[in-house]
């Protein structure tokens, strides 16, 4: 991540907030922590519609469409897409 403000810990904190927004809307319990190895479907309980909402919220915040280059499965892959995305390239 080239943007000095976009270190992994900061992005994970922001992602946790986004993930919890989606979970809250579905009436699911809020997560206290997000770790890179977590799977979006199995561990976060997201279906395809939730992943669409997640994509929009990440796009709004980081200017990266995480699913544009194919499916992502884990938090780690989301981090990679954000890190290699347009926002950090432009910085």
């Amino acid at each position, binding site marked *: 991540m080239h943007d000095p403000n976009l270190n992994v810990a900061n992005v994970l904190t922001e992602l946790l907030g986004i993930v919890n927004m989606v979970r809250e809307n579905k009436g699911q319990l809020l997560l206290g922590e997000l770790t890179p190895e977590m799977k979006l479907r199995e561990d976060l309980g997201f279906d395809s*519609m939730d992943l*669409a*909402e997640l994509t*929009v919220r990440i796009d*709004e915040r980081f200017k990266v469409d995480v699913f544009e280059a194919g499916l992502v499965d884990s938090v780690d892959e989301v981090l990679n897409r954000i890190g290699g995305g347009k926002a950090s390239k432009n910085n």
Partner: protein
Amino acid sequence: MTRHILITGVSRGLGLALAQKLLDAGDTVSGLSRHLSADYETLQKKHGKRARFKAFDLKQASHIKSEVFDDFLPFDLPLHGFVNNAAVAYDDLVTNLDLDRFRAMNEVNVLAPITLTQHAIRHMLFNRVAGSIVHISSVCAHTGYKGLAMYAATKGALEAFSKNTAREWGERGIRSNCVVAGFMETDMSASLSDEQGKRIHSRTALKKATEIESVAAAVVYFLKDGSSSITGQNLFVDSGTI
């Protein structure tokens, strides 16, 4: 409650009439057209900031995200509806098909509306808006007219897209419907001869052209909460084509 509605083809004809209706009702309109028309400018003078406008050519479907959404429709301006009104008509016999012209028509009539829908739904998801999408289709997708097979194919594609969008996004409260318009007296049908016009009108129960106001009123109905249980439907506003 006032709403914010995105309308394509807002400079004249049905798009203009619809913008006027919504603006008069207190809604905010974000209008797209290739050029700002004097008529839409008049609406801007009357309604000020609620009559938004962006010059955009739907032939540039790949620029929709950056130019229409990122620049003109930021996420902090919630979107309650999208009316896919703009279209171009290329008419000829099937045997005379010009592939380049057909491709260009598909870009404006199918690819751009589908891409606009993609981003309109994303916008609605972000703001958790149970929005309404309305596509303007044409009766020629249901009743054959000589010379309109290619144009009708683009409208048939939209109707299928609308029904599937309704199914896909209904669980988030997002609705999608089509208003299937008959032949209106707009610039789009201006190329029809009087004879063709008479033949078309003679096939309707009311024996006359479809009124723009009637089509616009049907679109407004789909945009409002009064139609909140209606999705995936086609409403024919066509003088009763039989």
